[in-house]
């Protein structure tokens, strides 16, 4: 029996995982075959209880609209949510998400997608002077919290998440990803230990254009959650991934920090390093830690997150989970295991192991990979 919401008697989901990411800096598109092949090499990093993908650039015809992917337990839930969407959004197009029933994935929720934009005249939107993005975030949280049997698992523009319970290669077949094209892909293979059969719990976790795949357990989850709650985030899913997404949303979208600085919050340098910086930098990083100490992600993690400008992969501050990166021409690959990269790119230009807490940032239209530390040339 599948579930789309976390009703397990657990404060939060705990899982180990495998992950992959592929990005083309010039926005050359590839279909889902590569990422499927890569992540399938990491088969043993999951246990068949969660797999998923995020793809960017897959809805060029609706690039200006928010693409909502929603999973439903039952049809009445669908009717309720659609009522809400009709009242608050202009729905340009809606359809079932194309799926292919396989022998591996045979029990699944109703999966539907909507291409929509917020109506400009909604009283609560006007009242709170919400921009479209804020309104969409509020709507996503509202549906996920208040509508039983419905869960929005993707809400960005020209991107989409495809996920469910199963091994990622089977999920890829289920969603027919080989027929989908995009210029950036991330994938995840999940090994949950306390929340079996939870469709909503699979990665990636997304909010607007953010998508996160994540391997790790955030040991500081408790305080990260309480910190976010102070800023009115509703942590309904009770997963680490959700926490990371919201922290990035807070830092980058709301507090307007540059991506690199926001990442420094997640895996901040140690004071012993900060103390040796020159004065301006020392002041900045000390302030960063003083202000955002509660947002520090402590504990093992490797994450890959995608956003409209590119992709970031990074480790926790002492690198307790594996992460390898490689580059070949305009393509950059990241994965938990080098083998996954070599499955789709047998001889990359360079392969390296990113240092603890130092992000690999790849933005579109730019070839360079800023982080060069720890290069292993092959």
């Amino acid at each position: 029996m599948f579930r789309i919401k976390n009703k397990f008697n657990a404060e939060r989901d705990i899982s180990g995982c495998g992950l992959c990411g592929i990005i083309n800096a010039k926005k050359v598109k590839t279909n889902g075959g590569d990422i499927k092949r890569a992540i399938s090499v990491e088969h043993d990093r999951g246990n068949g209880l969660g797999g998923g993908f995020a793809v960017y650039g897959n809805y060029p015809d609706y690039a200006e609209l928010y693409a909502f992917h929603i999973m439903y337990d039952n049809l009445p839930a669908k009717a309720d949510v659609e009522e809400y969407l009709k009242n608050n959004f202009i729905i340009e197009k809606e359809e079932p998400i194309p799926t292919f029933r396989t022998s591996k994935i045979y029990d699944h929720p109703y999966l539907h997608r909507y291409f929509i934009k917020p109506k400009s005249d909604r009283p609560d939107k006007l009242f709170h002077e919400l921009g479209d993005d804020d309104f969409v975030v509020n709507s996503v949280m509202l549906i996920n919290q208040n509508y039983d049997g419905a869960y929005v698992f993707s809400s960005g523009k020209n991107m989409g998440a495809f996920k469910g319970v199963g091994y990622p290669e089977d999920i890829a077949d289920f969603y027919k990803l080989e027929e989908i094209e995009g210029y950036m892909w991330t994938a995840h293979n999940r090994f949950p230990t306390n929340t079996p059969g939870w469709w909503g719990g699979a990665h990636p976790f997304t909010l607007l254009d953010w998508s996160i795949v994540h391997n790790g357990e955030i040991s500081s989850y408790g305080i990260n959650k309480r910190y976010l709650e102070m800023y009115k985030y509703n942590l309904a899913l009770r997963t680490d991934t959700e926490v990371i997404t919201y922290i990035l949303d807070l830092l980058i979208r709301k507090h307007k920090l540059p991506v690199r600085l926001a990442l420094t919050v997640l895996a901040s340098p140690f004071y012993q390093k900060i103390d040796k910086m020159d004065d301006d930098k020392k002041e900045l990083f000390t302030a960063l830690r003083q202000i955002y100490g509660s947002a520090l992600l402590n504990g093992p993690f490797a994450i890959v997150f995608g956003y409209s400008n590119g992709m970031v992969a990074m480790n926790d501050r002492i690198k307790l989970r594996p992460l390898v990166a490689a580059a070949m021409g305009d393509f950059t690959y990241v994965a938990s295991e080098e083998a996954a990269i070599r499955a789709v790119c047998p001889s990359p230009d360079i392969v390296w192991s990113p240092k603890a807490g130092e992000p690999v940032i790849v933005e579109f239209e730019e070839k360079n990979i800023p982080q060069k530390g720890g290069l292993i040339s092959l």
Partner: protein
Amino acid sequence: MTKSSFSNIQSEYLALIDHNKCVRCKRCIQNCGWGTYSFGGDKILADHSKCVACGRCYTYCPEGAISIVKNPTVLRENANWKEGLIKNIWRQSETGGIVISGMGTTFKYKKYFDHILLDACQVTNPSIDPLREPMELRTYLGKKPSKLDIDFDETGEPILKSKMPPQIELQTPFVFGAMSYGSISLNAQKAMALAARALGIVMNTGEGGLHDDLVPFGKNIIVQVASGRFGVHRDYLNSGVAVEIKIGQGAKPGIGGHLPGEKIGADISRTRMIPVGTDAISPAPHHDIYSIEDLRQLIYAVKEATDYEKPVSVKVAAVHNIAAIVSGIVRAGADIVYIDGYTGGTGAAPNIIKDHVGIPIELALAQVDERLREEGIRNEASIIAAGSIRSSADAVKAIALGADAVAIGTAALVVMGCHVCGKCNTGNCSWGITTQRPELVRRLDPEVYGERLYNLISAWSHEIQEVLGAMGVNSIESLRGSKERLRGVELTDAELNALGIKHAGL
């Protein structure tokens, strides 16, 4: 009325001397601040009624000839009419006075710290070895902006746009609690100052002014302004790293203080800026604070006097409505709020207050932290928790319940030899701690006990690092307020709810 010649109150302890071992060196006579011992020509005599079991005599008896035992003579046992109650009635019927004592309450209330268990990592996330990896305890106390305000320099690198509000930097999340010169001896204060400097933490002057000898320790001192305003002047306010406005104390919420005139010698007189021999009376309220808006005025008066360069702390006792009170204090502009639980210590307080007023720090802390978060102002002030932090475990739990740092008072005195006899109010402390008698003060060597304080806080810091490592985090800020890492045992739903933690097993 004729004073009756006998007292119902029998000696609580017996000072027994093994005359076979005793070599009549008379060290016990010298060491006892209470006058228990005298020399009877051929042997040491003990007046049991004067013994408070402070432990000084047997610690310093070279022959191990002394033992202090509880007086075996019983009062008829009665669970309702307990010994203490009966004795207090006798005491008060003989004197007509309020029963006063030092230290915290001796009542056996539930200690919530002892019903809270900590989490550790197993398999799904790795624990971290503090002997191999950095394990950060550094803590900053003071107001934090809610977001980082940045600009970019000519090369496009981010730089800080506005300066951070002033912060106290602590190398480990401990501070020494406020204990004034007067309530304790100058040597006791010096021991804390030496330790604070070596540890990179701070001590607190309490309401006794700042003695000249402590001025060089300014970087490790919080100066206090309390209702008596003793020793407060412009240079005093600027001589430490922060200023604390004391509203209340856990051991005696709502009560002022009274340092009797006989303790006001020349040195204390100069430090407190009052005449020799006058009683130093701290009124119950500040006479310029009759409401929260008055507190705001004082906070800003202090900030003006210190050029907005020092964080201002406000110390309050944990009372029933503490969450709302602290919220008000934070909104009044305090950068740090020091919350003192009902088991906190004191130099002297009426037992009726000490034993019956206030609430446990654990519950107060949990509620305050929750309230400030609900209101979105937790970043506006740091919280120091106090009220008998007895071990590093208490400290860890307090921090997980929401404190930024904890204050150590009684524990610091215990380091100096204190046996928690609770007679601080008498000024006879044999250990030279809560006394001004020169012959007693002299025996407390600040360097020796400064080092022992250093040892204690270092040891506790190492223990916190072990706990952090076991929890799989390598920075104290990942523990702060992380109630998810706590579980309760033997607690009711109401208690768990007030603490904001789950029962073990859930």
